[in-house]
C-alpha cells in the first residue's frame, strides 16, 4: 500500500467525512487545537526562558520542571488529537503541503531535543544549585526549544494560507 492510498483511506474514514461535512466540527476542533497549542507554547516558554537564564532564575528547577511539563504534556496530547482530526479531514492535501511537512519535521526535532534534554541535560541540573548559572548545554537546549516551537507555530499558521483541497 503506497502512502497516497493510505492517506486516501484516512480521508474516507467516517470521522474524516464528518470533519469535512459538519459545518461546526472543523471550527470547533481547530479552536481547541489553538487553545491547546497556546498552552504548550506558553508553558514550555516558562521552562525555556528559565533554562536560558533570562527569567525566574531563583525558582528551583525540579519544581519548575514538574509544574510546567505537566501542563505541556496534557496540552500537547490535546493538540495531537485535535491535529490528527484536522489532518484526517483533508489528509492527502495536508501531506502534500510543504508547510505541513516542515511543521512535522520541526516537531520531530523538538522530540529529539526533548529526548536529549531528559537523558543528558536534566540529570546534571538537579545537582546544580538553584541560583547557579546553568551549563551551556541546558541553555542551548532551552534556546533550541523556544526557536523550534515558534517556527512550528509559524508553519502551522502558514498551512491555512497554502492548503489546497484535492479530491
Amino acid at each position, binding site marked *: 500500500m503506497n502512502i497516497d492510498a493510505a492517506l486516501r483511506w484516512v480521508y474516507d474514514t467516517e470521522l474524516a467525512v464528518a470533519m469535512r461535512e459538519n459545518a461546526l466540527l472543523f*471550527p470547533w476542533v*481547530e*479552536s481547541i487545537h*489553538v*487553545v491547546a*497549542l*497556546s*498552552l*504548550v*507554547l*506558553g*508553558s514550555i*516558554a*516558562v521552562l525555556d526562558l528559565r533554562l536560558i537564564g533570562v527569567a*525566574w532564575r531563583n525558582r528551583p528547577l525540579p*519544581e519548575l520542571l*514538574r*509544574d510546567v511539563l*505537566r*501542563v505541556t504534556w496534557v496540552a500537547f496530547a490535546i493538540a495531537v488529537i485535535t491535529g490528527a482530526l484536522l489532518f484526517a479531514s483533508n489528509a492527502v492535501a495536508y501531506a502534500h503541503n510543504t508547510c505541513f511537512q516542515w511543521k512535522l519535521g520541526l516537531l520531530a526535532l523538538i522530540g529529539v531535543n526533548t529526548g536529549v534534554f531528559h537523558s543528558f541535560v536534566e540529570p546534571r541540573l538537579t545537582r546544580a544549585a538553584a541560583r547557579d548559572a546553568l551549563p551551556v548545554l541546558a541553555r542551548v537546549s532551552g534556546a533550541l526549544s523556544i526557536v523550534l516551537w*515558534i517556527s512550528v*507555530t*509559524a508553519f502551522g*499558521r*502558514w498551512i*491555512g*494560507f497554502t492548503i489546497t483541497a484535492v479530491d
Partner: protein
Amino acid sequence: MNLQASIAALSEFLGHTALSLTLQETAWVVPAVQTVHILSVAVVISSSLFIALHLLGWSARDLSAQQVARRFLPVLWWTLPLLLLTGSILIVAEPARSLQNPAFYWKMGLLITASTLTLVYQVPLRRRADFWQRSRLRVAATKLLAFTTLSLWAAVILAGRFIAYVDNF
C-alpha cells in the same frame, strides 16, 4: 445612518488607506502577524493558567499567591499591547473580515471581561497579600474567579478563530 452602515463605511475607508493597500499587497504580512498574535495570546492564557493551577493547589504549592501573581501578571499585562497592536494590523489589512463579523465583537466583549476579572483578582491582592485567604468564602471565590478568567481567555481564542467561519453581517 445606522450602526451597521457606519461600520461598513469605516471598513471601506480603512481598506483604501495607503497602509491597508501596502499590507494587502504583501502576502506574508497577514500570516506573519497572525503568528505573533498567537504567540502573544499563548503568553496571556498560560499566565492565567499558572495562576489558576496555583490557586487550585495543583502547582507551585511552596509559593504564595502574591509571588505567583508577581511572576505572571506583569507578563500578561505587557503582552496585551502586543496583542492589540498585532490585532490592529490585522484589522487594517482586512477591515471587513473582522469589523463586520459578529465573532469579532464577541471576542472584544470576552477580552474586556477577562481583563476586568484579572484586575478584580490582582488589585486587592496587591494591597493585602492575604486578601483572598481571609475567609473560606474568599478562598472559594478566588478559585472560581481564576477558573472563570482562564475559561474566558480560552473563549477569546475560540471567538477569534470563529471570525474565519461566522458570516459577516
